[in-house]
């Protein structure tokens, strides 16, 4: 009995140690959390409270959506160890904030990451080049910037996560839907007539399946660009509308959505575009070579058997007549 309990306690201790060590790896040292708290105590909540010197009363106000920062998302995002004042002016430290501060210049991706060798592999310059040639270019939409799609307070490097592709696709498409599915957001950038997505994509069979299984940029992004993820968004008339571009053995999805997947192996179970199969089934692209050959061979053999039967029957009939 004593032996057993020792055994158990050892197992318990070991598993605790494993848990503890793996938890250790994930621990982040939030060096700026204390300082950021000054901002997030208001901006991290949907309501904020302050003391009004004039009325000598505590006042409670709603935090406008555009000034709200989700604290949990912020501290798990790519810029998790940033100080608020790394990007925003230190003048924000006084409250009430000076109205003029809203005119502050805000850096975009290339302002910090451009020309930096450490970030070279993300090809920020190529992204900028793509963006400038896109329908979203500052020339066309002066109010449009990196932050129109990627919220710097929550942006995570999971746009290339291939483990849970469906969730990656959903996050990607959310960036587009923010404006293209909400007229109020669209109006921040343009006065052009708002197009209903369901109507403009009427030609797509199973619209829902397409929205869930592929990113908007598969058809609307220029895949010839150098950026890892297409940032040159094409005008509607230049976007992919031909089903065959994806639904074929040479599916364009292999050059876009599945670009970051492990090396495709056509021989894996005899499937063409095998990596697509992990998450999706694309009619026309997901063909099985072995099954195709098998069915053709069986069909040919069946025809041969029928022909043989017919020939023997004919010969035997002649023979029987002769008797």
């Amino acid at each position, binding site marked *: 009995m004593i032996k057993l309990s020792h055994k158990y306690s050892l197992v318990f201790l070991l598993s605790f140690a494993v848990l503890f060590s793996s938890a250790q790896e994930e621990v982040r040292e939030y060096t700026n959390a204390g300082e950021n708290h000054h901002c997030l105590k208001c901006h991290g909540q949907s309501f904020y409270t302050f003391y009004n010197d004039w009325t000598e009363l505590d006042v409670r106000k709603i935090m406008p959506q555009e000034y709200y920062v989700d604290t949990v998302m912020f501290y798990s995002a790519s810029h998790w160890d940033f100080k608020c004042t790394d990007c925003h002016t230190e003048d924000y430290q006084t409250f009430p904030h000076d109205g003029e501060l809203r005119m502050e210049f805000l850096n975009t991706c290339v302002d910090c990451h451009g020309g930096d060798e450490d970030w070279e592999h993300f090809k920020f310059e190529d992204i900028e080049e793509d963006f400038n040639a896109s329908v979203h270019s500052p020339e066309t939409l002066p109010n449009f910037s990196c932050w129109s799609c990627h919220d710097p307070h929550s942006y995570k490097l999971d746009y290339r996560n291939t483990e849970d592709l*469906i969730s990656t696709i959903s996050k990607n498409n959310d960036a587009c839907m923010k404006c293209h599915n909400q007229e109020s957001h669209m109006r921040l950038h343009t006065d052009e007539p708002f197009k209903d997505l369901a109507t403009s994509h009427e030609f797509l*069979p*199973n619209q*829902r*399946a397409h929205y*869930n299984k592929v990113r908007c940029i598969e058809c609307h992004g220029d895949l010839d660009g150098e950026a890892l993820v297409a940032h040159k968004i094409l005008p509607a008339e230049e976007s992919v509308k031909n*089903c*065959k571009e994806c*639904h*074929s*053995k*040479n599916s364009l999805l292999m050059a876009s959505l599945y670009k970051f997947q492990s090396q495709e192996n056509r021989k894996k179970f005899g499937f063409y575009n095998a990596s697509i*199969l*992990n*998450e*999706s*089934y694309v*009619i*026309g692209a*997901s*063909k*099985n070579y072995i*099954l*195709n050959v098998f*069915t*053709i061979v*069986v*069909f040919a053999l*069946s*025809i041969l058997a*029928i022909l043989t*039967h*017919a020939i*023997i*029957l004919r010969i*035997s*009939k002649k023979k*029987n007549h002769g008797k």
Partner: protein
Amino acid sequence: MANRLYLYPIWLRIWHMINALLFLALIVTGLSMQYSPVENPLIEFQTAIAVHNIAGILIIAAYIIFMVTNFSSSNKKYYVMKKKGLMDRLMKQSRYYAYGMFKGESTPFPVTEDEKFNPLQKLSYVGVIYILLPILMITGLALLYPEFIVHKVFGLNGTMLTALLHMFMGFLLTLFLLIHLYFASLSKKKFANFKSMITGWHEH
């Protein structure tokens, strides 16, 4: 007149004809999507999909009408399989096809008003109507509404499995059609079986 039997009522003939035409459309469009190269398809991809979807829905409707009419008429009796002596009957019929008919023997199970199918024929029809066709139709419908398909089945992509099953059932039924047509041609009088599916009368 004694040599004639009215075995195929008008509703059955109409269903059979519609079923045949729709099935041919489904085979041709299905083959085009599965085998022909996209760059140079047998039928344009979008056209093939549209025709395949419409024909698929129509063939399901025709199947439901057939089932309802079949079960509410005496025709259902032809699809009842008796277990007792089944193996012997199947062997007897197989022997006839593989040997007896070459010797000029007469068929071991002649067509009567109570039994219009021989044992092998009945087995294949029961298999096709009650097993293969329903699987083909259910998987086809599922592919038409893929949002209802289970995403992963034992770690494998549900839609892929559905599509593979659909394709394989389509293949088996195409094989059935080929064999069906060949055996239909084996009548004493030329095209007699094809004629009876138009007139309704079976001639001995």
